[in-house]
């Protein structure tokens, strides 16, 4: 229990199995239009682009991760309080306050929320509907400005539109644009760094970039060590299968 016996060599074998399985799991369950999904792919890649450190959102499987999430209970707000009355959208807009520029600075379980984000939770739209609304707006806006859908625009053009979305300079129906952006950014990071069982973090490449060891049984043997310890990451498939 006190050693990292779970990072054994057969992790490699199972890795191969997971890769194969992934091939059959990358089909759309939620997004119906190619152009929506293409906009999603382009937007997440802008948020977390491929670079010398490693793969970006698309290569990590983030768009499929988001598609799966939207098809499930998160996308339909199945655990949320959804009773009426919902406040009217104009009221949501007028209640918008200053939004925080930084991502949460606190430990993960104390996630700070800007007031704008809080108002998102008063929206009538489900998260899935917010995504459809936001992604279609990306394409429309890009078509208007650059005569090309978002996913065919240049990276700088895409970034310009996303920045306008982030700052609320673009208007959406039923939800503040900032809130769509916050959700998009958050879910991009979730897809990059959650366990690969959800369809993102393909081949554990997200964790490898961060040198995160995954679901290790124990760190008792390294907790006091001064030097940085590199470990081969362990997925839940391996951890639970031990």
């Amino acid at each position: 229990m006190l050693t990292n016996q779970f990072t054994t060599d057969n992790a490699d074998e199972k890795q191969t199995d997971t890769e194969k399985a992934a091939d059959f799991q990358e089909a759309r369950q939620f997004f119906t239009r190619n152009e929506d999904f293409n906009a999603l792919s382009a937007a997440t890649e802008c948020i977390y682009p491929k670079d010398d450190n490693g793969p970006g959102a698309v290569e990590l499987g983030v768009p499929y991760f988001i598609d799966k999430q939207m098809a499930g209970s998160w996308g339909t707000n199945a655990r949320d309080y959804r009773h009426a009355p919902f406040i009217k959208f104009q009221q949501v807009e007028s209640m918008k306050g200053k939004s925080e520029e930084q991502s949460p600075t606190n430990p993960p379980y104390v996630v700070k929320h800007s007031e704008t984000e809080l108002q998102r939770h008063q929206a009538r739209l489900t998260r899935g509907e917010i995504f459809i609304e936001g992604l279609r707006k990306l394409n429309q806006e890009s078509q208007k400005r650059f005569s090309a859908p978002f996913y065919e625009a240049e990276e700088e053009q895409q970034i310009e539109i996303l920045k306008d979305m982030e700052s609320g300079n673009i208007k959406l129906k039923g939800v503040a644009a900032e809130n769509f952006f916050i959700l998009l950014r958050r879910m991009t990071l979730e897809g990059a760094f959650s366990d690969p069982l959800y369809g993102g973090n393909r081949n554990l490449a997200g964790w490898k970039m961060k040198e995160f060891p995954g679901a290790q049984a124990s760190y008792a043997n390294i907790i006091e060590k001064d030097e940085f310890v590199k470990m081969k990451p362990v997925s839940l498939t391996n951890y639970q299968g031990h």
Partner: protein
Amino acid sequence: MATKLDKVDAVIVGSGWAGGIVAAELSKKGYKVVGLERGADKKSEDYIGTKDELRFSMRYEMMQDLTKETITSRNGADQTALPVRTNENAFLGTDTGGAGVHWNGHNFRYLPYDFEIYSKTVERYGKNKIPKGMTLQDWGVTYDDMEKYYDKYEKMAGISGEENPIGPYRSDKFPNPPMKDTPSIKLFKQAAKELGYHPYQIPSANVTQQYENPDGETINACVYCAFCETYGCDFGAKADPIITVLATAKKTGNYELRNDAYATKVIHDGEKATGVLYMDIRTGEEFEQPADIVVLAGFVFTNTKLLLTSKIGKPYDPKTGTGVIGKNFTGHFSNVTYLGARGYFKDKKFNSFAGAGALASTLDDFSGDNIDHSDLDFLHGFEPHIRVMGDRPIGNNHVPKGTPSWGREFKEKSLYYTNRNLYVDAQAAALPWAHNYLDLDPTYKDFAGNPLLRVTYKYSKQDIKLGQYAIKRAAEIMEKMGADIVDEDELPDDTQFNNSYPNSHNGGGAIMGTDPKTSAVNTYSQMWDMDNLFVVGSSSFPHFSNYNPTETIGAFAYRASEGMDQYLKNGSGLIEKPSV
């Protein structure tokens, strides 16, 4: 029509630490006890192999099902309260063991100052130091009275700790040695000592060696697996109600826990409580469970809501300051309390992914009234700490201020600093105000058709000044720790309460005291207005200290259990009479 069940000695709403301790103590004495838990049936096995950040930290698997019930929240009586619709803003415990199963295990005793906060403040600074509108009051019990209950709780939970060099009197040492040091904790301690402070290892319910508690329950040794605060323990190594008090209660054969049992009303005749009305969530059937004593041991919100919907006690009226149910609501909130400074180290890498919930160090130099408040524009204090909980990859993407929060530069820097950042933040006290309270919402209903509880809460100058002062101290420590970049959290003067409830640190609603005009229960958690009704948990805290509340909840649950035993023996009467 509700089905009336056979009468028992005690019915307890809730199976968390408060309900669990009461269940264990009463059933050990031979009383027949029924527990009502609205959440699902869970055992330790349910938490094996659950190191899944998305499922537990981001999707809130262990938090309350808000489709059934939530709270509404607003900043002032002139506003319309809106429902807190998602778990992102409502970390409320549920299921067997309640929030006691998904906790980090930080254990603190409150200070002697806390229990006599009004008297000691007046004694040291005079009455004028207490600002108008701050409803500070003594608890009616002293630290010395509570010491034996703290000790009992620590032995039950196997708390692993190190003597606090400037802490209050202890009759005995911790049952287990403190958690290990890490390089980051060593840095913190060294810096704190250089600044003249007294750091120590935070007492932890992540137990450091296999331990058998006085009830005969075994808690395993923590393996530092880094999945604690929103997770159940994979190893049975974190003291929680399932492996300790609920197991003890079940062993006696006198305790029955009913899950999916949603309490909707305390049945009473105006003088005595006669039982609890509840709904089986799965079938919609209603049951009445009669009992000699009724114990409300749910969360602050549950306890207060049940008193209000059952029309027991006088509801608090913020306009006149009269009434007690709903009074003195307080809590630790994310945009004023857990603030501090993040340090970025250019050439130093930490094994940040490793940790344990309560693997942490703190210092008491700023707690309670340990600093002289004569020239400060706030009362009470904070405890700056470094916590090594294990940084998980979705939650740990910190970048120095000025860096974009997405895109190429963000990716580069967030990856570079993933294992090169440390955070010192402070948990600050929350003092009560006349304008902060709980009542029933006029509009929104729960799934059973009862009104939701409504929170009205506004930050005061006190909260902001205390928070700003704490941030500065955290930043000084971080500077001393040698970080190349020290980013202070921002807390502007006009910061508003964000209607977010990021943990289970809430108090008030049915507070204790010695005067029925200003308190709902006596220090045995017994209702003044109904002597066979006990309301246990942090709902009885008249204010919220700068410490995590669990150990104090546990200590008062032990004290309340003694009172219940005495009551059941006598058959009637107040264990403790009003002193005024």
